[in-house]
C-alpha cells in the first residue's frame, strides 16, 4: 500500500525549530531547518540523528526546502549542511536566499561573540551552506529529479515567504510554512489554487484566535504616535530588524506623507539597512499598492525615515525612533529607553515587565529606573488566525490536514473544528512521532482510440466526473498499462478466441404447440424489452440480440414445454435477466 509518512523533528505540537520530514512515494524531503529560541543547548537544533545514525544525510534526503528566512525556520541550516553534512539541494525563494545569510550571520555573532559559545558554525560555513541553495520563483515548477517536483506559492507573512507543493506522480503534499491570510501594509495575502493535495501541512500558531480587523490596530497605532508627537514627546518603537519593522515603517511613512508631518523618524542602523535594500529589490513580492506605485516611487525609499545616530537621542523636540531589538532586553532600544523613560510626554511600545504594569525597573548596577513614559502594547503579528487557516484549507481542498507550529492544546481545538466542519482527517503529531497516511495513487492507463470511440458511440455523452462501465482487456507490459478491445488483445497476444456459452432450460406450462409457444414468448418479450431487438426467426426460434431461445416439447409431458435459452459470456447480463423473466411464466394469453 503506498503511503505518505510525516515525522516532525521540530514544531510538532510546539512553536520554533521547524523541521518536518516527509516521505512521499519513496522520496524523502525535509521541510524547514529551524532553531529553537528557548534553548541554548543541543535542543535548540533538530535531532538529525533521527534520519540516520551513520552515513551521509545526502543519501537519505532528496532535498531540503526552506519556507522563509525567520531563524526558527532556517536557523539550523549551516549546522545541518556543514557540520552534520548534507550536500543535496536546498530550495528557497530569491528573497529568502538574499536575506537568510544576513540573519544567520547575526545569529552566529550573538551566539559566538556575545555568549562565547564554541563548536558553533562559522561564517565560512554559512557561505558554503548558501552555495548549495537553489532559488525558485513563485509558481515555478522545479524538477528535483525525474519524479519529484516542487512548486512555490505566495504566503505573505514576511518578504519571500512561500508555501511549497511537493509532488511525486499524482501524490502531493503542501507545506505552508508561516503565512497570513490578510494583507498588511507591505505584503499581500497567501494564495493557493485548488491543487487538492493528499496532505496539507499547515502552521497553527493562532489556532484558537479570530482576530479583529487590522485597520483598528493601525489606526490606534497611528493615532497614539501622532498624539504623542504633537504634544512634543518622543516615541520609541522597539522592533525586530526584519518583517514587522518594514510594515511599521511603511505605515508611518505613508501617514507622515498624508498628514504632511515634519517630525523626524529614525531607524537604528545595522542589519536593517541591508535588509531594506533587499526590500527595495523584491518589489514583486510586496502588496498591490507598492507594486502599483513603484514606477513613480519605490515605497521602501523612505523620505521621512532616516538613519539613527546615537547622539540624536538627546535632541530636543519630538521624534520617532525604531530601535532593535524588539524585546528591549539589550542593545540600542534599551539605551534609548533608559534615556526617555523618565519623561511622561514620551511613549514606547515595550518589553514584558513594563507591559505587565511594573513602573519601577531594576537595571544592572542596582539602578532603579522609574518609568514615567506612557507604555502602549500593540500586536502586529502576521500569522493566519483560525478563520484564515480554515480558509486556506478550503482553498486547497486537501484529503487530510496535518497541524504543526502551534501549542498542543490549541491544535486540539482546531483539529476538532477541521474534522467537524470540513470533514477532513486531521493529524497533529508530536516531535518524533510519525503519521502514516495511506494513499490511493491514480494509475494512468492508456486506452486505444478505437475502443474509446466504440464505447462512446454506445452510450450518451461522457459525463464528467462520473464513473462508467467499459468492456475491454487490460494489458500490462513493461510497467505500462493499456486498455484495448478484446479482439485486439487476442490478436496482439496471438491467442485464439474461445466462445463460452451458457445454456439454460426453462419449463413452461403450455399445452399449445412449440411454434405457438415460441410465438407467445416472442410477443411477450417484444412487449417487455422495448429497447432490444427481438426477432422471430423462420425456424421457429426467437433471438433477443444474440441470445437464442428455442422451444421444445419434451416427450414425457405434453403440458409443459421446455424453453432452451442460450447466451454467450458477453451477454451474461441480458441472458440471466431473460431466464429470470421467463421463469416467472408467460402472461395469460388473450383467448
Amino acid at each position, binding site marked *: 500500500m503506498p503511503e505518505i509518512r510525516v515525522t516532525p523533528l521540530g514544531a510538532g505540537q510546539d512553536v520554533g525549530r521547524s523541521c518536518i520530514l516527509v516521505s512521499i512515494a519513496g522520496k524523502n524531503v525535509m521541510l524547514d531547518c529551524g532553531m529553537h529560541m528557548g534553548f541554548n543547548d543541543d535542543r535548540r537544533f533538530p535531532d538529525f540523528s533521527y534520519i540516520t545514525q551513520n552515513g551521509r544525510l545526502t543519501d537519505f534526503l532528496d532535498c531540503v526546502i526552506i519556507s522563509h528566512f525567520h531563524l526558527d525556520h532556517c536557523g539550523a541550516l549551516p549546522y545541518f549542511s556543514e557540520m552534520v553534512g548534507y550536500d543535496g539541494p536546498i530550495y528557497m525563494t530569491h528573497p529568502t536566499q538574499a536575506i537568510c545569510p544576513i540573519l544567520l550571520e547575526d545569529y552566529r555573532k550573538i551566539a559566538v561573540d556575545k555568549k562565547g559559545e564554541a563548536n558553533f558554525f562559522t561564517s565560512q560555513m554559512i557561505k558554503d551552506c548558501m552555495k548549495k541553495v537553489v532559488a525558485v520563483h513563485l509558481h515555478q515548477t522545479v524538477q528535483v529529479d525525474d519524479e519529484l517536483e516542487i512548486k512555490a506559492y505566495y504566503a505573505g507573512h514576511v518578504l519571500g515567504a512561500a508555501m511549497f507543493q511537493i509532488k511525486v506522480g499524482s501524490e502531493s503534499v503542501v507545506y505552508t510554512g508561516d503565512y497570513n491570510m490578510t494583507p498588511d501594509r507591505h505584503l499581500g495575502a497567501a494564495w*493557493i489554487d485548488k491543487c487538492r493535495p493528499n496532505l496539507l501541512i499547515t502552521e497553527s500558531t493562532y489556532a484558537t*484566535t479570530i482576530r479583529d480587523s487590522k485597520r483598528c490596530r493601525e489606526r490606534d497605532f497611528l493615532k497614539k504616535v501622532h498624539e504623542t508627537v504633537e504634544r512634543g514627546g518622543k516615541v520609541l518603537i522597539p522592533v525586530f530588524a526584519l518583517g514587522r519593522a518594514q510594515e511599521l515603517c511603511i505605515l508611518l511613512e505613508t501617514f507622515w506623507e498624508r498628514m504632511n508631518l515634519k517630525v523626524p523618524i529614525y531607524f537604528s542602523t545595522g542589519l536593517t539597512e541591508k535588509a531594506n535594500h533587499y526590500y527595495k529589490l523584491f518589489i514583486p513580492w510586496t502588496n498591490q499598492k507598492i507594486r502599483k506605485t513603484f514606477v513613480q516611487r519605490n515605497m521602501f525609499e523612505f523620505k521621512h525615515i532616516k538613519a539613527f545616530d546615537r547622539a540624536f537621542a538627546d535632541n530636543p523636540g519630538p521624534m520617532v525612533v525604531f530601535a532593535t531589538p524588539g524585546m528591549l532586553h539589550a542593545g540600542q532600544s534599551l539605551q534609548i529607553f533608559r534615556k526617555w523613560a523618565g519623561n511622561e510626554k514620551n511613549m514606547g511600545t515595550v518589553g514584558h515587565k513594563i507591559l505587565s504594569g511594573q513602573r519601577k525597573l531594576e537595571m544592572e548596577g542596582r539602578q532603579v529606573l522609574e518609568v514615567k513614559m*506612557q507604555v502602549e502594547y500593540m500586536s502586529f503579528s502576521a500569522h493566519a488566525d483560525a478563520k484564515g487557516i*480554515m*480558509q486556506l484549507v478550503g482553498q486547497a481542498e486537501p484529503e487530510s490536514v496535518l497541524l504543526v507550529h502551534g501549542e498542543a492544546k490549541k491544535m486540539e481545538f482546531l483539529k476538532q473544528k477541521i474534522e467537524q466542519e470540513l470533514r477532513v482527517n486531521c493529524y497533529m503529531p508530536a516531535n518524533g512521532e510519525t503519521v502514516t497516511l495511506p494513499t490511493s495513487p491514480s494509475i494512468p492507463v492508456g486506452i486505444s482510440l478505437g475502443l474509446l470511440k466504440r464505447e462512446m458511440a454506445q452510450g450518451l455523452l461522457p459525463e464528467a466526473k462520473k464513473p462508467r462501465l467499459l468492456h475491454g482487456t487490460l494489458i500490462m507490459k513493461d510497467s505500462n498499462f493499456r486498455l484495448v478491445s478484446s479482439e485486439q488483445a487476442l490478436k496482439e497476444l496471438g491467442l485464439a478466441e474461445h466462445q463460452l456459452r451458457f445454456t439454460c432450460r426453462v419449463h413452461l406450462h403450455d399445452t399449445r404447440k412449440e411454434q405457438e409457444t415460441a410465438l407467445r414468448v416472442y410477443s411477450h418479450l417484444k412487449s417487455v424489452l422495448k429497447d432490444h431487438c427481438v426477432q422471430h426467426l423462420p425456424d421457429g426460434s426467437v433471438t433477443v440480440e444474440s441470445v437464442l431461445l428455442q422451444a421444445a416439447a419434451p416427450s414425457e409431458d405434453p403440458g409443459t414445454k421446455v424453453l432452451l435459452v442460450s447466451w454467450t459470456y458477453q451477454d451474461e447480463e441480458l441472458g440471466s435477466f431473460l431466464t429470470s423473466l421467463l421463469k416467472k411464466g408467460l402472461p395469460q394469453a388473450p383467448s
Partner: protein
Amino acid sequence: MAAHLKKRVYEEFTKVVQPQEEIATKKLRLTKPSKSAALHIDLCKATSPADALQYLLQFARKPVEAESVEGVVRILLEHYYKENDPSVRLKIASLLGLLSKTAGFSPDCIMDDAINILQNEKSHQVLAQLLDTLLAIGTKLPENQAIQMRLVDVACKHLTDTSHGVRNKCLQLLGNLGSLEKSVTKDAEGLAARDVQKIIGDYFSDQDPRVRTAAIKAMLQLHERGLKLHQTIYNQACKLLSDDYEQVRSAAVQLIWVVSQLYPESIVPIPSSNEEIRLVDDAFGKICHMVSDGSWVVRVQAAKLLGSMEQVSSHFLEQTLDKKLMSDLRRKRTAHERAKELYSSGEFSSGRKWGDDAPKEEVDTGAVNLIESGACGAFVHGLEDEMYEVRIAAVEALCMLAQSSPSFAEKCLDFLVDMFNDEIEEVRLQSIHTMRKISNNITLREDQLDTVLAVLEDSSRDIREALHELLCCTNVSTKEGIHLALVELLKNLTKYPTDRDSIWKCLKFLGSRHPTLVLPLVPELLSTHPFFDTAEPDMDDPAYIAVLVLIFNAAKTCPTMPALFSDHTFRHYAYLRDSLSHLVPALRLPGRKLVSSAVSPSIIPQEDPSQQFLQQSLERVYSLQHLDPQGAQELLEFTIRDLQRLGELQSELAGVADFSATYLRCQLLLIKALQEKLWNVAAPLYLKQSDLASAAAKQIMEETYKMEFMYSGVENKQVVIIHHMRLQAKALQLIVTARTTRGLDPLFGMCEKFLQEVDFFQSFVDKLLDLMPRLMTSKPAEVVKILQTMLRQSAFLHLPLPEQIHKASATIIEPAGESDNPLRFTSGLVVALDVDATLEHVQDPQNTVKVQVLYPDGQAQMIHPKPADFRNPGPGRHRLITQVYLSHTAWTEACQVEVRLLLAYNSSARIPKCPWMEGGEMSPQVETSIEGTIPFSKPVKVYIMPKPARR
C-alpha cells in the same frame, strides 16, 4: 515634420476616401454587379487557399451596400462548396455573418444555405463560426418565430459536438434565441420553449469550464431577454459556486443573484438541518461566502452584487459586519465594541493598560463555528481585502445597503470610518463619499467623530474637501463634538489656508444644523467674560470669521443667542452680512430694525411676486410693435434695467432675467440701428452712420453667442429665436458693408455666404422664404435692397422662457490676484501657475472650458486643461484645479498678466450637418474645433517677472 506629414496623410485620406463613398451611394446600380463579379473573378483566379484568403481579407475591408449583399452572399456560398481549405471556409463563414448584419438587408434568404452547409461541415472551428453567423442572422430577425425555432433546433443538434467552441456557440445561440413566448402556438412550440432552460441547465455540468461558463451566460441572457428562470436553477447554480474555474464561479454568482431577485420569498431548506430560510437570505449567505473566494475577480463580483440585495432580512445583513473574535478560545470584543463601551462608560481615552483588550469569557469550543455558512463577517473580509478593487466594491455595496436600512447604516459606521485610513486614496475618497450619502441616517459618536476629523490633516485636497462636504451634513450628538469639529477645522485652516472657503461653508451648515449644541459654547468661542471686556478680535482673521460663521448660523434659529454677543460682535455681524452674505444669514437682532427689515422679504416666500413681475415686464415688451419707435426704445431700456436689478436681487431668477435682458438688449440695438434717419442716404454720405450700425451688428452677434452657449437649459425653441436674431444681425452687417464698400466683387462672396446661412434655418421669417426664388436669382445689389426693406419690416419675436435656465459662471479662487510679490522665473523657461476655479452650470466643461492668459504685450495664450483636472463635487457644479504654464522673454520690470476662463463654442456642432456642405470640406476635426470663445469669469491679474537668464 513628422507631425506635418501625418497631417498631410490624414487630410488626403479624408479627402480621397470619403467622396468616393458618397459617390458610391449614388451609383448603386452600377456598382452592384461589378462588386460581386469582381469578387467572383478574384476567387476564381485564386490558385492557393492563401491567395483566396488574401482576396477575402481585402474584400472584407470595404463595405457592401444592402442591395448587393445577396449577390455577394451567393458567390461566397458557391465558393464555399468548392473550397477544401478550412481556413478559407472559416473566413467565408465569418463574412457571411458580417454581411447578414448589413443594415437594410434581410438575411432570411441565406439562412437555408447557412444551415445546409452547417450539416456537411466537418471542421469544428468552421462549425463554430457558422453557428456564430446563424446567431447574427437570428438576432437580425427577432420577429420571425419560425426561424428562431429552427435555429434553436440546429443549436440543440450540435450541442453534442466534441469541440468546446461549437458547444459554446450553440449555448450562446440558445441564450439569444431560445423562445420566450410559450403561448404562441401551444402544442409543439410550448414543448421546445420549456426545454430551452433544461437543455442549457444540463450543460452546467459539462466537462469543459468554458462551456459551463457559456451555459451560465446563456441562462443570464435568457433572463435579460425577459424569460422567467425556473427556481430549480438555483440549486444547480449553487453547486457551481465551488467550481475549479474562476470564470464559472463568477458567472454562477451572477446567476444566483438573478434567481434571488426573482424568487426572494420562496423557502429553501438548509442542508444538514431541518430549518428553512428565505431564498434571498440563503443566496445572500452564499454570495457573502464568495467574498472570501480565492480569485479576486470573483470577490469583486460578489462584493458588488451584495449591494443590490435589498430584500435580505436585517438579521442576515447585520451578520456581515460581525466577526466573532476570540483569543485563546476566549471571547474577545472587537476594537469597535470596546470603543463604544468606553464611550458609554464616560471614559474617553484608553489603551494605556496592557491587556486592555484581554479576552474575557471562555468560549464554548463546541459552539464556535469557524466557517459560517451564513453571511458572517463578509464585509469585514471584503473591506480588508488585498485588492483595492474589492475594497472599493465592498464600500459601494455597504453604501447601497446602508441607504436602504437605517439600522444597518448605524452599524456599518465604524467600518466606514476605518476605511478613512486606507492606503489607497481612491478607497478613502469613496468611503468618505459613502458616508456623506448615508449621513441623514446616522449620528456620529464622539470617538467616531474624532477619527473622522483626524483625516482633516490629509495632504490631499480632494480628501479634505470631501470631508468638509461630509461634515456639512453630519449629525453630531454632543456639544463637545461640535467643539472638537471646530477645533480640528481651525487646525486644518492654519495648515492649509487655501481651504478657507470650503471650511467656512462647512461651518455654516454645522452651525445651522446644531443650534442648541452651539448655544452653550458661545461664550467660550467668543471668549467673552461676564465682567471684563476682552480685546476685540481681528476682523480679517479667517479663523475668527470661521467661528463667527458657525455662531451666526446657529443664531438664526436660536433667538436667545444674540443676547450673549458683545458689542463688537454686532458690528462684525453687520460687516460680514455685507461682505460674506452667502455665508452669514439674516438675523433678527434686538434693536436693529434696519438690518432685519431690509432683509425681511427673504423670509416671506417671494417666488410668486418676482416671477410675476418678470412675466409682466416681458409681456409689456412683447406688445412693442404698436408703440412708436421712441417709446419702444425707452420701454426696452427700462425693462432691461429692471431685469438686471431683479437678477441681482433674486438669485433663483438671475438666469432667466439675464437671459431675457440680453435678448431685449439685442432687440434694442437692432431698433436703434434701424432707426437712423440717414438710412436711405447714398453710400458716400453714409460713412458715419455705418460705424454705429456695424458696431451694433457686431455686438448683437456676440450677445447671441452668449445666449446660445452660456446658459444651461436652453431648449431648441430658444435656439431658433437666437439664430433668428443672429441672422438679422448678419443681414444688417451685409447691408452696411454693401453701402460702404465700392465695387461688387467682395460683395458677391458675402452674399453667397449669407444666402447659405439663410438656407440653414428655415425660420428666418416666412416671408423671406417666399422671396427666396427672387433672392437666388437676383444680383447682390438687389438682395441688399430686399433685405433692407425686410429688416425694417421684421417683427419682434416673442421669446418663450425655458423652465430652468442658468447662466454659466466661473470664479477663479486661485490665483487671488492680491500678491505684490511678482512670480520670478528665468525667461525662456516656464513657471507653473496653480489655477483653482469653481464653475457653475457649465455643460461638458472638459471640452468647453479653456484658460486664457493675456500678456501685457497683447499676446494671448489659450490653454486646454486636461479632462482629469475637472472634478464634479455636486450637480451643476464643477471644479477646475489645474496648472498653467507661463513663459515669456525677459522683461525689465515685473508686470501683470491676466488670467481668465473662456467658454469655447462651436455652433456647427449643434446644428445637424447640412447636405450641401461638401463632404470633402467638412473633415471630422471641424466638429470638435472651436468656433469662438466667450469669457465668462472675471479676469485675475498675476504679477510676474521673467528675469533674463544669467550667463
